[in-house]
């Protein structure tokens, strides 16, 4: 991670119709594109919105609905920031991490609340929304600190929350502390047109294939990865299939007196 200026667009992101138009709302978080070690500033946390807004019922519009349900409005889901006390061991881990990060602050590192933009506790799982420029240092601290000992990385993967969601692309990292039997999720929200994230391979070698898969499926460029190549799709494939803007494909199936459209064109009730 070196660039303090906008890097050229990664190859393939725009190919094959894979990269959808990024929502106009991305403009609001354009400041987050600054990505360099010299800038230690709190980024816009509203990027942790994770879900699209809904209206009406059954996804049907213009049907002449007179029931009134068509007027329903449901805002997009945003995971709520957790409040102290988080409960269980969650407070302890947050405190220890803050302490460990403060200890090596002499090296010019950012304190905990700049590294971790938001903490969410949901359904018994703890998620830290992490600023990508501090990811590697945070992960190393989580792995090495004797009171944290997240020595095992379960996996790295991506989630595309779909068009219109600010910072729609998320990188999700699941860590496991075998010493303390704790699980922690790190999440990094990215803009689709600036899908770059530092690689964790130097901290967790197991992230190698996971990051290749995330690049392959979502087009996230992991900077510092030893050889970021496609892993599931053929080397010369265009586009990144797990993006919401990438079509599922399929053909209609014909029966007597009936034709069933492909799955992505069937009526969806969501």
């Amino acid at each position, binding site marked *: 991670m070196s660039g303090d200026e906008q890097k050229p667009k990664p190859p393939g992101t725009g190919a094959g119709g894979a990269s959808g138009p990024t929502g106009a709302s991305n403009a609001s978080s354009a400041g987050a594109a600054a990505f360099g070690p010299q800038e230690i500033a709190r980024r816009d946390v509203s990027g942790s919105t994770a879900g699209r807004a809904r209206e009406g019922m059954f996804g049907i519009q213009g049907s002449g609905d007179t029931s009134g349900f068509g007027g329903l409005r449901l805002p997009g*889901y945003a995971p709520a920031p957790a409040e102290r006390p988080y409960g269980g061991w969650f407070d302890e881990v947050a405190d220890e991490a803050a302490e460990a990060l403060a200890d090596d602050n002499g090296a010019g590192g950012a304190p905990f609340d700049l590294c971790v933009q938001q903490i969410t506790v949901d359904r018994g799982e703890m998620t830290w929304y992490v600023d990508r420029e501090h990811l590697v240092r945070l992960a190393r601290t989580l792995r090495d600190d004797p009171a944290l000992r997240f020595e095992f990385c379960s*996996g790295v993967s991506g989630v595309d929350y*779909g068009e219109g969601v600010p910072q729609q692309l998320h990188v*999700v990292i699941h860590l496991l502390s*075998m010493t303390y039997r704790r699980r922690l*999720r790190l999440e990094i929200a990215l803009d689709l047109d600036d899908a770059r994230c530092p690689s964790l391979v130097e901290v967790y070698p197991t992230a190698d*294939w996971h990051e290749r898969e995330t690049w392959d499926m979502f087009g996230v460029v992991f900077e510092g990865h030893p050889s970021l190549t496609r892993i599931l799709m053929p080397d010369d494939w265009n586009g990144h299939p797990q993006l919401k803007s990438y079509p*599922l494909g399929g053909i209609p199936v014909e029966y007597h007196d009936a034709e069933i459209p492909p799955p992505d064109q069937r009526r969806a*009730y969501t």
Partner: protein
Amino acid sequence: MSSGNVTDTHTDPYAASDPYAATSRETTEGTVYTVTGGDWDEMVDQTAGDERIVINMGPQHPSTHGVLRLVLELSGETVTDARLVIGYLHTGIEKNCEYRTWTQGVTFVTRMDYLAPLFNETAYCLSTERLLGIEVPERAATIRVLLMEINRIASHLVALATGGMELGALTGMTNGFREREEALHLLEFLTGLRMNHAFIRPGGVVQDLPEGYEDRIRSFVAVMRERLPGFHKLLTGNRIWRQRLEGVGYLPLDGCLALGVTGPILRSAGLAWDLRQVDPYLGYEHYDFEVPTDTAADSFARYLLRVEEMSESLKIIEQALGRLEPGPVMVEDAKIAWPARLSIGADGMGNSLEHVRRIMGQSMESLIHHFKLVTEGFKVPPGQAYVPIESPRGELGAHLVSDGGTRPLRVHFRDPSFVNLQAAPAMAEGGMVSDVIAALASLDPVMGGCDR
């Protein structure tokens, strides 16, 4: 290899210069063509002076455990560099799940790791249930445990069988598949299908176990108790088997942790890490069983652990039978429970006539619920969940994300085959080509799960 009696009958002028052209000869059965790769001696001549030979193994080589491709760099017969190429069985299951309801997703994920379908289903359903905030009834949880342990035995038997086949122990292969057939017959009796069951659904299991299940399961346990020691007789003391496996595919504990390796490979390095005990789910904390470990960290230790784990699974199966109390096998919530009441009719399996009569003729509520659940599916509150379980190959985690709709926003499986395969170069480099096979077999990768 060319032999003396082959006469080249090709009239193609380019044939003489093409070392890979097929030769043919006339026999009483007609013309027989011999298609080969290059001659080894010729290849060595061509590469004379170049110490390094790169060979490609797979993706259709019988001892690469499915469509896995290995690119090996050799110095003599020693592997100096091994690279794995995967993706040949990528089927886009994760993407497909985003276009189906939460219940339909089960039939997709069950096809990922096709040797352990019930584990995929359980991980998916546990994750969905955490998102929904529901707990399955006691009987459903016990049935899941019961089925998973039968499945674990079937999966480990395939690991032994294919591992034996790849090393030339063909009786190990025939015995392993014979025993596995017992497990599959039992699963077919219990769930209706040998594989890809789709029996475990969000909220419980699709239906109760059939009549007479207890006798069938007990006789299965008895048969396995009798036959499992046969592997010790056949293989454990076998000198060839030991020499092929001992000290091969060594991966110590720090290597396992760095590379994210779990399951029998991690336990063969000495760490008793089994999610059934360290992070119990579905009431595993109530079962009395051992987690076998070893410290040799080699292929032989992994073989032994798999045999021992099967015996432990038999113990769990018996205890699960004792814990099965009559009760519901699906949550009571009519907004979630799949409304089907299946029975065997004259035209095969379908909804029972009584159930159809009830929903069509007597209960408006049932009809509405049936219609809504089948066409629309149930809504899952937004959020994300990651539930790991102990599959035969290690940590199988289902990371599901919901945006509040009737379809998942994202389904991701952390499949142990995918992660464990990363360790293959660390196990194979510096060894012989033949040891690559033994090391890979001890990983027991399933490419369906790896590529998804």
